[in-house]
């Protein structure tokens, strides 16, 4: 299921639903216009210059934030002119009033005429701009669904993949019993954040459950406590579990040649691990995660041994 990434489109209604609590937002006017109204440019704008009449470089595809400065400026204008200035903002995706300020009558009339949804936030403008930018970037970050179970092992995010029935969930279960945490069972959503890091998370509806063959569906935090779950985790390593017979000749026996898989444009280290009866894969996966952590800290065991060997062999020349 490694398909091309999609950057989801978001509507004003999506933005409001996702940010209502965190950004302390409420509807101020024309909420019904928010449904299906796409935010075509994922950023915010303070329309001070546009209100002053300079419309040549006006970012009208963005959500417009009216703060103390904008409202004070409009209040300084003759009453007859205020509504025309608001109307000049045009068909923007939405308006946000900061500091919990209510719309004055002329503005309410203008936005009703434009049919533009208006929200108010209790945050101050600067704080809202920062938080809302991050929220919108998260909502629109490129993402994909992959068939795989994701766990967090001592701070390392590991995606286990392999055919159904190969034992991904069983290994995740064994790791949970050892004190590691589950991120997602069976299906993992990978998203790319604005700093170029890939994160994994579960599909919300099945987040807390796993299916174990022979047992059926289990509730993970109910059995192992809340510490056994993690809502999201950076993806550091992909472990591909494969039946022993298949591709044994392709296995890396030294660890010198790191393989990578391109995920949402980021190269993620990939290890292929053969599955055979009697092999304790939980240990292997756990050590692979620790080894990955060592590598991230600048220690590469395979390379260090190889360098040592080369020095020793050179002396014997």
């Amino acid at each position: 299921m490694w398909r091309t990434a999609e950057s989801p489109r978001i509507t004003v209604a999506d933005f409001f639903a996702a940010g209502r609590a965190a950004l302390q937002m409420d509807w101020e006017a024309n909420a019904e216009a928010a449904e299906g109204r796409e935010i075509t440019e994922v950023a915010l704008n303070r329309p001070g210059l546009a209100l002053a009449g300079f419309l040549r470089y006006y970012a009208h595809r963005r959500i417009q934030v009216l703060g103390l400065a904008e409202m004070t400026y409009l209040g300084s204008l003759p009453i007859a002119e205020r509504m025309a200035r608001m109307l000049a903002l045009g068909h923007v995706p939405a308006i946000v009033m900061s500091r919990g300020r209510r719309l004055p009558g002329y503005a309410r009339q203008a936005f009703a005429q434009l049919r533009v949804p208006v929200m108010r936030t209790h945050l101050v403008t600067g704080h809202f701009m920062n938080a809302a930018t991050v929220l919108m970037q998260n909502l629109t970050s490129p993402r994909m669904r992959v068939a795989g179970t994701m766990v967090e092992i001592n701070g390392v995010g590991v995606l286990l993949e392999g055919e159904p029935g190969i034992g991904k969930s069983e290994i995740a279960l064994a790791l949970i019993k050892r004190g590691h945490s589950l991120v997602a069972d069976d299906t993992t959503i990978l998203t790319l954040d604005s700093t170029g890091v890939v994160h994994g998370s579960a599909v919300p509806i099945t987040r807390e459950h796993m299916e174990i063959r022979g047992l059926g569906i289990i509730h993970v935090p109910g059995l192992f406590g809340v510490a056994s779950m993690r809502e999201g985790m950076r993806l550091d390593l992909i472990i591909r579990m494969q039946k022993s017979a298949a591709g044994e000749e392709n296995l890396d026996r030294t660890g010198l040649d790191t393989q990578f898989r391109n995920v949402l444009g980021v190269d993620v280290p990939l290890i292929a691990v053969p599955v055979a009866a009697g092999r304790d894969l939980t240990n292997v996966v756990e050590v692979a995660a620790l080894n990955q952590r060592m590598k991230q800290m600048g220690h590469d065991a395979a390379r260090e041994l190889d360098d040592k060997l080369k020095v020793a062999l050179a002396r014997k020349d």
Partner: protein
Amino acid sequence: MSPEPAQMKAAGTNALTRDVTVLNRYGIHARPAALLVKTASRFACEILLEKTGVRVNAKSIMGLLTLEGHHGAKLKIHAAGADAAEAIAALAELFENKFFED
């Protein structure tokens, strides 16, 4: 690079698709999902279920549950492999019979 897991490996050789609709009242909840997995697992071919562009492996219960296949949802069954035709027929039958629920 290892092969891409849930993409149709045998695509082109014997790959089939059929449209189905979720007819039972409660949609694809745990029991129908288990029935689908049980049926799909009888076949060697690779089988995916698709809803609005999202594809999941029909041999995985949790995968099927994430589809949120409600009553009336339109799905596609994709199967690729030697016994793809039989697999699709068997799964479509489950949909048509409302998973023997209602």
